[in-house]
């Protein structure tokens, strides 16, 4: 089975690497750049005495980039199954010596690799812009007499924020897989995926804080928002329970485990009439 799934993953990437995919990746890079350069500027002007901090640039750029990368991941994952039904190519695949489980696993692995790739691309784009545009070092008060945040602490918070963004980002991709099995039209599937992704975030914002922590949409804006504030000298406390209770890991994984069985059952039982 591992050999069959590996071959199918390679085949998935042959289908995936199209001009449309590279356009989406380009948009992620542009979003990261715009966010990185514009975000700190909106927070306050840059002076000779107080240049933009690289981590502030990174937090803004990474947040914008991840938002666009999240949309890209949902679009691509929403198309994984639906586009095969749409074109009828699903029958070509399922009449080969593979099982439906093989194909489903390969598609999930592809989304996982794609999610990791997009995340790393956004991360390194954000870091590149941060190092090019901002300065490293401690964060000082405007009068330059007191260190508000030492660099070591800020760097540790950055690592934590990146880690805590990763699993919620992946969960968006698996939401796309579920939606992709609901309909045989890739247009509807992408529309549904984007709608859930967009409204999921909006609805999460409206919930009481205890409920917000049970939604994977909560983590990325929260941790990167906090990182940005810290890099700008903010003194608010980080919600330790997210880290100590591993909520940033448990909530997205629980969401993925909720999405996948539903998608698998639908895919297994579907009659292929495309």
């Amino acid at each position, binding site marked *: 089975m591992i050999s069959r799934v590996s071959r199918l993953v390679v085949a998935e990437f042959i289908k995936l690497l199209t001009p449309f995919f590279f356009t989406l990746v380009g948009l992620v890079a542009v979003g990261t750049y715009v966010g990185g350069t514009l975000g700190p500027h909106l927070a306050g002007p840059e002076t000779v005495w107080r240049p933009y901090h690289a981590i502030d640039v990174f937090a803004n750029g990474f947040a914008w980039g991840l938002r666009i990368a999240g949309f890209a991941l949902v679009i691509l994952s929403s198309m994984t199954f639906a586009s095969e039904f749409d074109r009828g190519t699903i029958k070509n695949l399922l*009449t080969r010596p593979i099982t439906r489980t093989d194909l489903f696993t390969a598609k999930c692995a592809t989304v996982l690799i794609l999610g990791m790739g997009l995340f790393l691309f956004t991360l390194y784009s954000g870091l590149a812009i941060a190092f090019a545009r901002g300065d490293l070092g401690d964060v000082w008060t405007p009068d330059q007499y007191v260190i508000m945040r030492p660099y070591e602490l800020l760097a540790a918070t950055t690592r934590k924020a990146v880690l805590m963004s990763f699993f919620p980002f992946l969960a968006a991709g698996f939401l796309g897989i579920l939606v992709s099995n609901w309909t045989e039209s890739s247009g509807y599937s992408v529309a549904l995926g984007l709608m859930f992704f967009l409204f999921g975030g909006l609805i999460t914002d409206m919930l009481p804080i205890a409920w917000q922590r049970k939604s994977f949409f909560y983590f990325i804006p929260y941790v990167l928002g906090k990182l940005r504030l810290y890099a700008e000298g903010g003194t608010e406390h980080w919600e330790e329970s997210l880290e100590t209770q591993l909520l940033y890991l448990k909530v997205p994984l629980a969401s993925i485990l909720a999405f996948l069985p539903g998608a698998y059952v639908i895919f297994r039982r579907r009659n292929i009439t495309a």
Partner: protein
Amino acid sequence: MVAVLQTSGLTKHFGEIKAVQDLNLEVQEGDIYGFLGLNGSGKTTTMRMILRLIRPTSGTITIFGQDVQKDFIQIMKRVGSLIELPAYYPYLSAVRNLEVLRLATGGIAASRIPEVLEIVGLRDRMHDRVGTYSQGMRQRLGIAMALLPRPRLIFLDEPTNGLDPHGINHIRGVIQELNQKEGVTFVLSSHLLHEVEITCTRVGILKQGRLILQDTMRAIVARTVSGVRVVCDQAAKAESILKAQPWSKEVRAHPGGGLRVMCEPARFAEVNALLAAQGIAVSELSPVRQTLEDLFLST
């Protein structure tokens, strides 16, 4: 002969609709099996059930003596198919489309791709995007996809759809060559009954989900002989003599000239002897056949 494909009591219901009922198909090794039926008679549903794209309501399917439900992966290594319209990724070239399927199949050398494209006559355009292909070229690509794993059994649903006469002739040649030289078994459905008549060795006719006729083409052709055409002098006299015979069901003018006598093939020699005995010179005696289309429409 070994049965390559056998279905037993194969049934599919979509709610109240009985798409296929109690189907007992049998395709022998080396057959070119013509699967005929009107639109909606259940041909494609049957092929989809055989290929496990649709779940049967009941019944069993065996290919190469193995159960499709249990040994699907082993079976599909030796099966190719083109079901309904060919499906492809329009933004990829023919080579990349086939590469996707080569990877999905496993155990196929990369050199097989240009080989199958050569067989279907697409080698010159193999690096062009499939979205730019004509309908006939896409159909050829669909057949190339079916041929890719060097299958021993190939299902082709309307393989000549969208092909021009040259293309139809080419694909017919490919089918016959693979069948005769490599012993590949084909199951093909077509609405082009003349095509089926000259290509297939065995035929099954499906009507409202039921198999109403299944036999070799030779037997079916023999069954379609419905009388004899007689060209002779003294046609009026000949007609009255023949009409008087108890075994003669009908005697009338043949549209091509002469008389058409409806009787059993065993009586043909008697027709000649009878007319000759009456001094009537018979210059031509030929069997009158129904076409497969006549048979198909009358069933």
